[in-house]
């Protein structure tokens, strides 16, 4: 058994050559590639099963028989899973499922210690010591606030998809899908396949914007074909696609009863008088994904702003971060989709192997060259996608002073503006200190992007700051922390 956690307490592993955090497409590809080349690897993931966001399997016992139905490339995952299982059997990979890494630290001799908690009540602590570390921690959904977004029945688009893939019940029978980004198409289709009626897919950007980069499109014919396929399938499922439109208000007392959809201009400003009501009992809304950077920032890795308005880990061609001994792959280094995540995972592992062995043999070297070429091509497309769907500054006009921006601490847009205009805040950190926005349970993961944009708009040209620092990647019990200082 790779991970039977029968007794509480601390477990320490012996030092391994590589620790991989995240068993999504990127981390999975990285771990098996590294193990194929003989490295001993520990693979940690908070989830109970490998696969990450994309290859999410139904929880056991829910009776789902065809998880592949929601994925067009399930065989890739089946193949990776089989390799993982083989390496687990031989002991080359120790796969620690259900392990949330709460922080990483560097020892005096340059090793990394990854501190994780696990168990039903997080009562077991694990510390993994590794020579090198590869972060493939993926992304979470980007949310923008608007009047009514806190009403029951409004859910994240990615969250809705995740619920479906895990085999859970539908959140409604008539669901509007809204926001921006290619994910929305996948979500709308999955919902209709699961039996829901999707009266509209509301996209704030316009798909025509992709045509502005014909070279990138030509290099990625698969992406264009995928877009055409989505369009055809959506039409077949009687989903109306409304682009240059946004949900600017949600109606209902106890839960969602309808939404107002308005036309927005190129800068995402609502055009007055264009609002139309669409009846629905749920709204799945999302504005793309944001890289999960907590561990990378804690490790000291540099980050850079991307064309989609999010921060991502700075990487070189070898997928090395700015900190020696730390690599990153997949969405940690910028949102880009599953194909890119798989490509980067493998490439990063080859780069680690190269560094340990002082070079790689002919076949691997050729493979690395091909992967690097794919990566450049896919990243170019990802950058285009990011720029097309980057929220326009006019989204702020959806807000009223009373619209909650930080749900955990119930901070409205008006208070954020006052903090900027009257108290001198101009960056997310000061807004947080002066209003408590981002200080609650989610630690600003939900409102962080919105607060940054509001601070930039009202802060009189101050620098809104880099990515948030969260030295603890998740909440940890005081007793868990206290035990670390015990004897031994």
């Amino acid at each position, binding site marked *: 058994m790779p991970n039977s956690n029968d007794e509480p307490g601390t477990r320490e592993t012996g030092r391994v050559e590589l620790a991989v955090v995240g068993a999504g497409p990127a981390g999975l590809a990285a771990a098996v590639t590294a193990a194929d080349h003989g490295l001993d690897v520990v693979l940690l993931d908070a989830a109970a099963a490998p696969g990450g966001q994309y290859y999410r399997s139904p929880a056991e016992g829910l009776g789902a028989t065809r998880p592949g139905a929601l994925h067009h490339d399930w065989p890739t995952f089946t193949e990776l899973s089989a390799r993982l299982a083989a390496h687990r059997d031989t002991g080359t990979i120790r796969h620690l499922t259900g392990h949330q890494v709460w922080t990483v*630290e560097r020892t005096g001799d340059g090793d990394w210690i990854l501190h994780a908690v696990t168990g039903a009540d997080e009562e077991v602590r694990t510390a993994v010591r590794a020579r090198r570390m590869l972060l493939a921690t993926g992304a979470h959904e980007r949310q923008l606030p608007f009047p009514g977004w806190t009403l029951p029945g409004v859910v994240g688009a990615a969250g809705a998809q995740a619920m479906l893939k895990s085999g859970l019940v539908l959140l409604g029978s008539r669901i509007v899908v809204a926001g921006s980004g290619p994910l929305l198409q996948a979500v709308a289709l999955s919902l209709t396949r699961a039996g829901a009626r999707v009266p509209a897919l509301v996209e704030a950007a316009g798909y025509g914007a992709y045509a502005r980069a014909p070279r990138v499109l030509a290099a990625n014919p698969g992406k264009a074909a995928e877009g055409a396929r989505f369009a055809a399938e959506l039409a077949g499922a009687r989903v109306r696609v409304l682009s240059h439109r946004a949900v600017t208000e949600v109606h209902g007392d106890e839960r969602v009863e309808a939404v107002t959809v308005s036309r927005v201009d190129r800068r995402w400003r609502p055009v007055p008088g264009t609002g139309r009501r669409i009846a629905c009992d749920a709204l799945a809304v999302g504005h793309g994904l944001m890289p999960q950077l907590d561990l990378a920032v804690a490790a000291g890795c540099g980050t850079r702003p991307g064309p989609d308005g999010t921060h991502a880990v700075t990487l070189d061609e070898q997928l090395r971060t700015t900190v020696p001994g730390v690599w990153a792959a997949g969405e940690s280094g910028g949102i880009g989709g599953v194909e890119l995540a798989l490509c980067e995972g493998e490439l990063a592992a080859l780069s680690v192997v190269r560094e340990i062995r002082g070079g790689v043999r002919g076949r691997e070297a050729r493979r690395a060259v091909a992967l690097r070429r794919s990566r450049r091509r896919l990243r170019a497309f990802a950058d285009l996608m990011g720029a097309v769907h980057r929220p326009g500054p006019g989204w702020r006009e959806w807000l009223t002073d009373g619209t909650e921006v930080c749900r955990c601490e119930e901070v409205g847009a008006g208070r954020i503006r006052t903090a900027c205009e009257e108290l001198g805040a101009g960056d997310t950190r*000061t807004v947080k200190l*002066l209003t408590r926005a981002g200080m609650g349970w989610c630690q600003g993961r939900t409102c962080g992007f919105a607060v940054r944009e509001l601070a930039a708009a009202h802060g009189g040209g101050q620098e809104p700051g880099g990515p948030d620092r969260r*030295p*603890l990647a998740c909440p940890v*019990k*005081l007793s868990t922390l206290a035990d670390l200082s015990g004897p031994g």
Partner: protein
Amino acid sequence: MLTRRPLDVVIVGAGMVGAACAYYTSRSGLSVAVVDRGPVAGGTTGTGEGNLLVSDKVPGPELELALLSASLWRQLSEELPKGIEYELKGGVVVAASENSLAALTATADAQRAAGVEAYHVTSDRLRDIEPHLAPDLSGGCHYPQDAQVQPALAAAELLSAATRAGALVRPGEEVAGILRDGKGAVRGVRTARGELHAPVVVNAAGTWGGDLAALAGVNLPVLPRRGFVLVTEPLPRLIRHKVYAAEYVADVSSGSAALQTSPVVEGTPAGPVLIGASRERVGFDRTLSVAVISRLAAGAAALFPALADVRVMRAYHGFRPYLPDHLPAIGPDPRVPGLFHACGHEGAGIGLAPATGLLIADAIRGERPALDLGPFAPDRFDATCHVT
């Protein structure tokens, strides 16, 4: 275009201390500008806690400053919006052994003689005033004058009040040079955006006060002393006072660079419990130290066993502005006419800010300050230190 009066004072630093200086100088009728390279409260003020303590200070100049500040904070709490979260909650210092209780009692006696209110609490009464304390403590001391504010809000509100009194606040503007006239006297500052002319410059640059002093060619050995704080999930009011272990006072006054941790625990109006306090001189190292935060956690759980199952939501750190004798630099610099210092308050800058601001305003106006500035003289390190 608004034509402004010529400036009397430029204050460098919009932290708690710079804000207090701005408040008292502008309200005394001086024309003031505050410049900061970052946002308001973006330095140590935004990374500390907001305890306004007299309990942790032994008789001497710092305690006098703290007592003056305590009464000024009470006034400010009436003048500023309630949002600064001022709370006269009182402090409770607890001793885990008979030895530390004896030391605590001796300190409290001396403090009482210097004007501090301090009441001995026997071990059987401790849980009456603080119900969740561990049962096996030897005793403690209650200090009703200890209070708390939310530092960033307090600084922002002081600056906002200063603005209403005519002060100009300029965030996002770094001071790159101090302008001097032919005789060496200060005549303003040079920033990335231009020059600001004034016959007086106040160094309220906190932990970076040494760098600012160097711009004027003088030595002031301010060093960073790092501290971590843990923040728990919001809880119903579990902890009523600021509670800390008697050893804390010794740690505060230690001159060693090595790590000291002694548990300091307090609730906040918003619900989360804050757990401090570590002290170590490791430069500006921003990486999380698991060893330090686990010691903080262990200390807090020992004082309050009920906290063991509570979740820590986040950890943050800050760099206290440390001067080797643990006293701030407050007052005119005899080496550079027109240069005033108001920095180096280490772990007490929030508490000591109002008195500092008042003393600086008096000193600039040439009035007799309420306290003797001698112990805070900015040039007091010149005998032992040299500019490098």
